[in-house]
């Protein structure tokens, strides 16, 4: 087996006296879709948010243990969490649309990072929208408010916005739970395509979805890792 992209060792997260994650250890391989499944309150989202240090934004959480990204520890003083979050993107349960046009939304991240020149923005936007399978639907109305899109399109717009930043990993927190079945199928298919180039970590409560799109699935319960199943291998 190749070196894992993310390696979690004895990760525990506490909020006050409550234990959200209890010494979880697991390895997430390069590429493919890695699923996190479990009932609500099991700590799936907490584990997911530990991968790009979004946990830092919630006051009062204590994180112990270690998460390695490409072999070096994430929770180290030398790591810049903002730069990290540009490499490990995130897609939320509800699509989050910023006020402004579709174009402004796709380029929101890259525009403010200042890594892309202004005149290259249209090209970056087109590539990201094509990767998110949204280009054909929006190419004639890029300047319209993003709120004119359907919820399913908005979620793919959020995905395009993340893709524009060229992340290595995308964390998805139940990205289809707000969508209708057709949009869900579209996003699931999209996840499969993207996983050829990018590592995707998908939180879901839906076993069928996990079986359909994930290579491996870790199931959590009350903050503890229960088991890891491999759909790509017979057994792990």
């Amino acid at each position, binding site marked *: 087996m190749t070196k894992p992209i993310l390696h979690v060792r004895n990760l525990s997260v506490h909020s006050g006296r409550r234990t959200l994650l209890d010494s979880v250890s697991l390895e997430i391989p390069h590429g493919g879709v890695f699923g996190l499944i479990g009932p609500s309150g099991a700590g799936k989202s907490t584990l997911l948010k530990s991968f790009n240090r979004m946990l830092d934004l919630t006051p009062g959480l204590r994180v112990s243990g270690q998460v390695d990204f490409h072999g070096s520890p994430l929770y180290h003083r030398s790591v810049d969490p903002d730069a990290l979050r540009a490499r490990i993107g*995130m897609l939320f349960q509800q699509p989050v649309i910023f006020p402004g046009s579709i174009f402004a939304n796709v380029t929101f991240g890259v525009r403010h990072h200042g890594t892309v020149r202004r005149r290259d923005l249209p090209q970056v936007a087109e590539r990201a929208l094509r990767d998110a399978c949204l280009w054909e639907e929006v190419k004639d109305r890029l300047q319209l408010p993003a709120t004119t899109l359907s919820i399913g399109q908005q979620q793919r717009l959020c995905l395009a916005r993340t893709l524009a930043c060229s992340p290595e990993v995308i964390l998805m927190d139940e990205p289809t739970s707000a969508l209708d079945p057709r949009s869900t199928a579209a996003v699931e298919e999209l996840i499969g395509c993207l996983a050829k180039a990018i590592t995707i970590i998908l939180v879901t409560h839906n076993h069928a979805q996990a079986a359909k799109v994930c290579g491996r699935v870790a199931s959590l319960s009350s903050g503890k890792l229960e088991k890891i199943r491999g759909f790509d291998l017979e057994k792990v």
Partner: protein
Amino acid sequence: MKRKIIDHLFRAITALCALVAASVLAVIIGAIWRKGASAMSWEFFTVQMKEAGVSGGILYHIAGTAILILTAFLACAPVAISIGLVHGVYLKREHTRRAVMLVLYILNGVPAILFGIFGMMVFVQYLGWGKSWLSGGLLLALMLLPTVTVAIVARIEGIPRGQIEAAAGLGLRQSQIVHAIYLPRSFGGLITGSLVGLARVAGETAPIMFTATIFAGATLPTGIKESPVLSLPYHIFILAQDSFDPAAGSKLWGTALTLLLLVFAFSIIALIPRLKSAVAQHHD
């Protein structure tokens, strides 16, 4: 049955209260309009005052009030935005945030005449500016500050948490999030808050009468020290107090009507985006 009666009674009382409030406003507007409309003419706005207010127009009074409120707005805006950002972004502890709001509410409650006395002590005497448009503008800015800041704070608090998380999730640093999300949202609050606030402070007399404005003999200011301006509210104040000439009376009501229209203009402009957003919310 009894409940129905109480319900009807309650409705009647609230309707009556609304009617009283609306009719007071209507009477004020009606009276000012009836007495002041005859003084309104193109000349009234474009000619300076003559014969101590008995004839001529109020050109420099309009200019003076415009200078005062523009100064107030320009001085208030950066401070209000800064306080709004400090409150909404950088202060993490709930009780320090509450303390900031408390100070603003107290500032809002300070009587206008005390701002006048404070300005006289600090600007007129200590800094030696004498009567100056700048001290008046700065005092009005202080009075404007709570209204504008509270409006900005409300806008910032209304930003969905998800947007901040999504921006952080894209790898924006806090300064970039401030620039990308907090600042654009603050501007809406700045504009509506300023219009509402200016509508109030434009008519204030007490803070400027000792510090910034005189009755006659000023045109446009050329410096800071000893450069007072004329103003609409002080003109009304002096004419109402001193003048027994009926010709001055018509100018008095004309000035009052001008001030009223100015203040209405601010309030109505401030109302437009609110109505729009109310309509938008209705359609969601």
